[in-house]
């Protein structure tokens, strides 16, 4: 595996942003009332209630049901959320270097801004004194096996699925060559389209 630490390098951005100082202002969140607006609006609401008798002939409890008949979610007040995220060109550059994928176009950048805005709803939850949860099996001991080879040498098999090999090696293009700077990268990526 390659090292994904400091060695990773940047990629060309698919489209040029208007200017270096421009930030993106997503308009994703529902308006103040989270029940009906924006992201939770469903494509269809017009279904009629279930026809009686389809499930059998039992009497329905109707209003006495334990199932709540109206939505129970609390609206998330816009004012409780952090400021709209700034997706700067510098940030985009940095992320592309870390992720080794490019945003490709403005749409990709907009998507990131929306994803951040959505994640920001977490900040309305009080987590004081709560430990982070890494695993749902945290109350159990993790199974550890003995550090012994359990399979025969299968280097040949594993190498067989690589596109380029020589003897027992994966072949990569020359290393230690940084990617060209953004403005020199125009022809770097071969676009499949």
């Amino acid at each position, binding site marked *: 595996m390659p090292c994904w630490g400091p060695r990773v390098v940047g990629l060309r951005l698919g489209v040029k942003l208007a200017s270096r100082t421009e930030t993106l202002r997503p308009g994703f969140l529902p308006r103040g009332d989270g029940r009906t607006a924006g992201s939770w609006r469903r494509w269809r609401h017009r279904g009629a209630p279930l026809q009686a008798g389809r499930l059998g002939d039992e009497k329905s409890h109707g209003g006495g049901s334990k199932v709540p008949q109206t939505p129970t979610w609390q609206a998330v007040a816009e004012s409780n959320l952090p400021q709209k995220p700034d997706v700067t060109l510098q940030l985009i550059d940095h992320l592309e270097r870390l992720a080794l994928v490019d945003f490709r176009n403005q749409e990709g950048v907009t*998507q990131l801004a929306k994803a951040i805005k959505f994640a920001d709803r977490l900040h309305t939850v009080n987590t004081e004194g709560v430990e982070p949860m890494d695993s749902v*099996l945290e109350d159990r001991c993790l199974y550890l096996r003995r550090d012994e080879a359990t399979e025969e040498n299968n280097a040949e098999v594993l190498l067989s699925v690589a596109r380029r090999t020589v003897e027992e090696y994966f072949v990569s293009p020359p290393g230690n060559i940084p990617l060209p700077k953004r403005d020199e990268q125009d022809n770097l990526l071969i676009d499949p389209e």
Partner: protein
Amino acid sequence: LCPFVLQLQVSVALREGQIRPTELCHRCLSQIEETKFLNAYITVTEEAAFKQAEESEERFKRGKPLGPLDGVPVAVKDNFSTAGIETTCASKMLQGYIPPFTATVVQKLLDQGAVLMGKTNLDEFAMGSGSIDSIFGPVRNPWGYSKQYRGESSRREDPGWLIAGGSSGGSAAAVASLTCFASLGSDTGGSTRNPAALCGIVGLKPTYGLLSRHGLIPLVNSMDVPGILTRSVDDAATVLGVLAGHDPKDSTTVQDHIESFELPDEIAVQNLCVGIPKEYHAPGLSSETLAAWTRAADLFENAGAKVVQVSLPHTQYSIVCYHVLCCTEVASNMARFDGLEFGHRSKMESSTEAMYAATRHEGFNDVVRGRILSGNYFLLKQNYERYFLKAQKVRHLIANDFLKAFSSGVDFLLAPTTLSDAAPYLEFTKEDNRTRSAQEDIFTQSANMAGLPAVTIPLTLSTRGLPISLQFIGRGFQEQKLLSVAKWLEKVVKFPLIELEATAGNLQDAPKHKTFTSAL
């Protein structure tokens, strides 16, 4: 068409010699051919399937079948590694990749004599909730071609074909269209239950740690589980019995002794306490799904069960928490795809870095790329605590909500699986993948966050003639209880069998099938 609908029935028929494994295999292959416009399969392993069916037939002739699945046709989602059979994750990144090993759960099916019909379609790398983002084209919901739906919709304008749900849409469509008796999906945030619900079949997400993930190409390691899709709860229990148990190749499988079980025909409903999580009436829940949920709760109450409303107060934050944790783990997991050791490799050879970059640019679709970028954002040094650790803390609160509900005496929770029935493709694609996933996974991902078992079963048909399903969520490793209760409701509601209408119109724009015939 095969005269047997359930695995339980066909197993008996095979044993009694009413049908031979090769004949069964042939009928299922014909059904795959007749329903190929659904695009449920990426690869149909016709030749290998026949060979397996012949071997099974030999065992039956000798009077020594292997187990309940011997000779039974099954299908597997194309994100489970299968030696000798292309495994693509519906991505250009793995197109043409033939794994050198087989996933443990798939091997267990084969060791039991199950006949593998093929690999099923999905959203690229299982990221999606519609099975529309696949390089092999979208999966279509078989119910869109049923008499039940066609009859109802003939009075109004045709909205076009319907999505199957996702990401295991191919596995769900394969079972719903009677091309096999069981299939494997994967369930990270609802990817087994969502398509099972929309395709009107049973979808089981087992407890995290019960089934091996070895060979399942990872999406979110802390949540991924193999899922089971069948046409009855009993069948799901049978497949679970075959698959469950510790695997030395997956350190997250528990070492407890696991025994397979049969579900009782009768249970003492009056001893049950059913929890109705009130936060599962989320904005956007369709009135028909709400009615089905209400009806099901009443059915339990009328049968003598104690039905109580419980609160899982952090439910509405669960989908947000899931979004962050999913992206971060995806960012980490997708680092393995660099073009060097396996999968797609760009022709770019100017430097290693340029080759990595070009490979990933060419290999991933926008959805995968978007999640990788978001995940890297949440993991930035300055964001790590603010987003990643924060989400992990909220995850604890969500898991604790379930613990509290169960410790209050509730045996299981009853809730909707999806907001409504299956949407037409043209409607579904009006929003992007991330928005749709946030809507579609809204009721399903919290069971993954807490690692709990959950099973969806179809309740009834909507006025449009499409399945409406509900899910049961149980305590960890209590699959037997959970499925017993699901089976009780299944018996009460008598959900109808799909009546597929094969018309010439269905076949016109059928995607072309690849047939891959390497033996296993």
